């Protein structure tokens, strides 16, 4: 038996600004029938408050692609490879087993987590890592990293357990209504308030380097597009023309922002160079052009346009030219954005008086409806392209939902008050 331990110095920046707020409650509403069994044995010497094995299991189970083994059903609890008796795991029909241990440095109090992933049927090691030492309160992120490593090994695509979601929470009516731009871990943990206002906050979008959010805010009857560094708290108003300043979308290189402005005539798409502030007008059609999104290669943009009547999705080169209509099914199609590999668009489709989330194949234009609400909107791809998060109307108000691109796994994220406009962060850059 060969055991490999790799030391990971994966660095995660954890300083989030603002006070903690109400946390989103997470529920898997539809899982995969063919999910894989995996046993996550409690880690040895888990003295910290955070149960690392439990966080890993929760991550994997919430992906909908795995199911776990209750601790009471474990016939042994090994923490070292040589202590594993595979018969004990075959007996409970596990395909894979994760074991681990933790070591606290008495001086610094920092904790080192070591874990192994074993194939039960073959008795083979698939992974072995020693994670970088971390303070006990940050062990949740170490657990997410471990879950990412396991997920990528077994599923073949990157995990998104160390990602964030930004969203807008609002509550109250009339004069009491308040808006908060929030950032939380993908599973709803560690919610932080990035910005708060008594006027609407809209359309948050992550910069490709994951350091900043672009969003729309209002101040005394005027809207602006803000760039907000979520680590330093530094805020800059990028544009605040007369009329609409909306729909910010970062170019893949992070240097430009596509936006909607209406100061020259009606809502049109502009590209703003972030460093200089220079604007270039991209569309000129009468009627509304809005909701731009870049292709992953930065060559094209899709956007919502009334140029042919009711709103449909069009694609135009980032350097200008004549747009090409992309959607033909349904009364309206709105707010498209590209999948990370550029082969699909996720959008909002209006058909039979229902706004639902749909996938459009960029090549053959075939459309697949993914959601079943009446007012579903604001779809955003997870950075691994396997899951979409969107806003939907729940029994208690607006909430967030996720659906896998194959439509088989569904989850809900909700809290008191309305939650909407989710934006899934990029992966930490390797």
């Amino acid at each position, binding site marked *: 038996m060969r055991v490999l331990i790799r030391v990971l110095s994966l*660095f995660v920046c954890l300083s989030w600004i603002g006070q903690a707020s109400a946390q989103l409650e997470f529920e898997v509403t539809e899982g995969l029938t063919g999910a894989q069994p995996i046993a996550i044995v409690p880690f040895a010497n888990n003295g910290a408050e955070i149960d690392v094995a439990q966080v890993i299991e929760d991550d994997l189970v919430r992906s909908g692609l795995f199911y776990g083994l209750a601790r009471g059903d474990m016939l042994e609890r090994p923490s070292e490879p040589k202590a594993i008796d595979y018969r004990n795991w075959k007996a409970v029909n596990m395909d894979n087993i994760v074991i681990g241990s933790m070591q606290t440095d008495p001086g610094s109090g920092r904790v080192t987590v070591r874990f192994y992933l074993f194939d039960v049927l073959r008795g083979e090691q698939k992974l072995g890592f020693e994670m970088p030492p971390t303070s006990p309160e940050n062990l949740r992120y170490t657990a997410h990293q471990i879950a990412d490593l396991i997920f990528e090994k077994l599923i073949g695509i990157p995990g998104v357990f160390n990602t964030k979601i930004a969203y807008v929470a609002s509550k109250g009516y009339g004069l009491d209504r308040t808006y908060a731009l929030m950032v939380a871990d993908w599973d709803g943990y560690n919610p932080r308030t990035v910005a708060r*206002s008594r006027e609407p906050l809209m359309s948050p979008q992550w910069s490709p380097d994951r350091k900043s959010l672009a969003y729309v805010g209002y101040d005394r009857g005027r809207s602006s597009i803000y760039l907000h560094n979520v680590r330093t708290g530094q805020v800059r108003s990028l544009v605040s023309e007369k009329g609409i300043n909306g729909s910010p979308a970062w170019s893949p290189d992070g240097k430009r922002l596509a936006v909607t402005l209406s100061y020259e005539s009606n809502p049109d798409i502009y590209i703003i160079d972030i460093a200089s502030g220079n604007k270039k007008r991209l569309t000129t059609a009468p009627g509304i052009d809005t909701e731009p999104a870049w292709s992953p290669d930065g060559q094209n943009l899709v956007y919502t346009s009334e140029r042919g009547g009711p709103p449909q999705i069009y694609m135009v080169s980032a350097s200008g030219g004549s747009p090409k209509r992309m959607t033909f099914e349904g009364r309206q199609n709105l707010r498209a954005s590209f999948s990370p590999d550029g082969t699909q668009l996720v959008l909002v489709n209006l058909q039979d008086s229902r706004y639902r989330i749909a996938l459009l194949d960029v090549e053959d234009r075939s459309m697949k409806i993914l959601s079943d609400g009446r007012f579903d909107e604001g779809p955003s791809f997870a950075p691994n392209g396997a899951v979409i998060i969107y806003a939907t109307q729940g029994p208690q108000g607006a909430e967030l939902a996720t659906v896998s691109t194959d439509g088989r796994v569904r989850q809900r994220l909700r809290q008191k008050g309305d939650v909407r406009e989710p934006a899934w962060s990029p992966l930490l850059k390797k």
Partner: protein
Amino acid sequence: MYKNLVLSLLVGGSVALAGCSSASKKDSSAGMSDNSADRFTSGANDISGQGTQVGSRQDDTSGLALSQRTIYFEFDSSDLTAEGKAIAANFAAYLVSRPTAKLRLEGHADERGTREYNVGLGERRANAVQQALLANGASGAQLSIVSYGEERPAVDGHDEDSWAQNRRVEIVQL
């Protein structure tokens, strides 16, 4: 047999470090102050007043009917109804009689459709009211426009009645 393989994968490296160390603890809502209650004088609560009162406002010495300050719209429409035209005519007369007076036209949409598209619809409605005011003699310098799309509903609810009350332009005297 154990074999140790050391892999140093430094992610985000010094840049991420710098980002962390310079993070400040202060509330970062600097982008928008939230202490100005005065920007909520828009009459968002005035949707029930269907009657046309005369001279109800303290500052309204012209005797014009300005109490009805909300103009409603049909679904997917930015055309003024007869009632909407009458309200606009009242405000146009007010602006003509008071050249220093200023109005803000706040456009709104119902919840159906995407949020940024609805900002466009709200602006189109505010523009329609602006055109009516200009056609009745108001000056462009007296008018400003903002669209809140579906972000500031007048009433809660997911039915035709609620939507009809939320598709509106509110006229705010500045």
